[in-house]
């Protein structure tokens, strides 16, 4: 890190002080973010602790980035890493017929990995369907939900749904709150 980069990055102590200065609302935000990114392989609590560890280990936190946003991004990165680990997990199986031999040869079990991936895909499909079923009474909310899942911009979704900025913001809040209530610990996919 050169001196200019160092000047633009918070020191470890500055990150710690910024975290200590978080308000009750900020802590609630972090809890909610952790719930959203929690996975079966990593709980919301572990995500928070791991994000603290990354902050304390001196990961680059640019001065212009809000610390809550920095911790949220750390949790996202950790959760995605966990998801990748599960997706790429190699199951080792013995290929030695004589189990008593000291040298055990092993190789990846493609059937095991494929099975894990099939189960994960089924879980994802069930949650995907479950989320849409939460909005059976609100076709516009379903359209907004679908737009968010398809990575459409706010403008594109508003154009497709004929919502003005206020109505769109209100619909997004409704979506978030309903999901929040239905999956208080996140959908832990």
């Amino acid at each position, binding site marked *: 890190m050169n001196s200019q980069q160092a000047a633009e990055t918070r020191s470890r102590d500055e990150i*710690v002080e910024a*975290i*200590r200065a*978080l*308000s*009750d*609302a900020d*802590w*609630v*935000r*972090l*809890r*909610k*973010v952790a719930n*959203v*990114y929690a996975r079966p392989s990593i709980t919301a609590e572990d995500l*928070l*602790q791991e994000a*603290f*560890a990354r902050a*304390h*280990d001196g990961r680059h936190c640019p001065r212009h980035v*809000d610390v*809550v*946003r920095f911790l*949220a991004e750390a949790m*996202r990165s950790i959760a*995605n890493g966990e998801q990748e680990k599960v997706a790429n997990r190699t199951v080792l199986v013995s290929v030695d017929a004589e189990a008593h031999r000291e040298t055990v040869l092993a190789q990846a079990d493609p059937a095991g990995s494929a099975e894990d991936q099939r189960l*994960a*895909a089924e879980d*994802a*499909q069930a*949650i*995907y369907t479950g*989320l849409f079923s939460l909005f059976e009474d609100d076709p516009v909310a379903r*359209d907004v*939900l*679908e*737009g*968010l*899942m*398809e*990575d459409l911009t706010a403008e594109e979704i508003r154009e*497709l749904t004929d919502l003005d900025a206020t109505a769109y913001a209100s619909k*997004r*809040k409704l979506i*978030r*709150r309903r*999901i*929040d*209530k239905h999956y*208080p610990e996140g*959908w832990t*996919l």
Partner: protein
Amino acid sequence: MTGKKDTERTALDRLADALVEDILDASDEDILTEFTEDGGDAKEHGDAMRKSFENRLLAANKARMAAAKAGVAAARRAQSEGLTAQIDLTAARVWLSRLGERPDVPEGLTLAARKEDELSDADIRGMLEDLAELGLKPPGYGGSS
């Protein structure tokens, strides 16, 4: 609405990111009201989180201190081993055999040193390290006495 063909998992990841954006952009008032509506106590939660963070910090600082201590010990060991590795063992054996002539050296050490011809190179290196800790160093052994 026209859809881009994609997996459900990717769709859910995108939704998670959108939900998080909304959480980060929401006002403090909205966030606190929601938390209370869901049966939470924001003050209590905040205090618990702060305590958890401080505990984490304490554990991390202890781990860093332990790692630093281990690093210093390893550096000292490496330095000591490096010095004995460079020493002229023949000269060191001569120096050890004459150690008994010095009045400032404890008798136990001089007895061991007199048997230098029975000692292996590794024994000699070990003795040199032990003596170095007492401030007794042969010529050429990092700041000799």
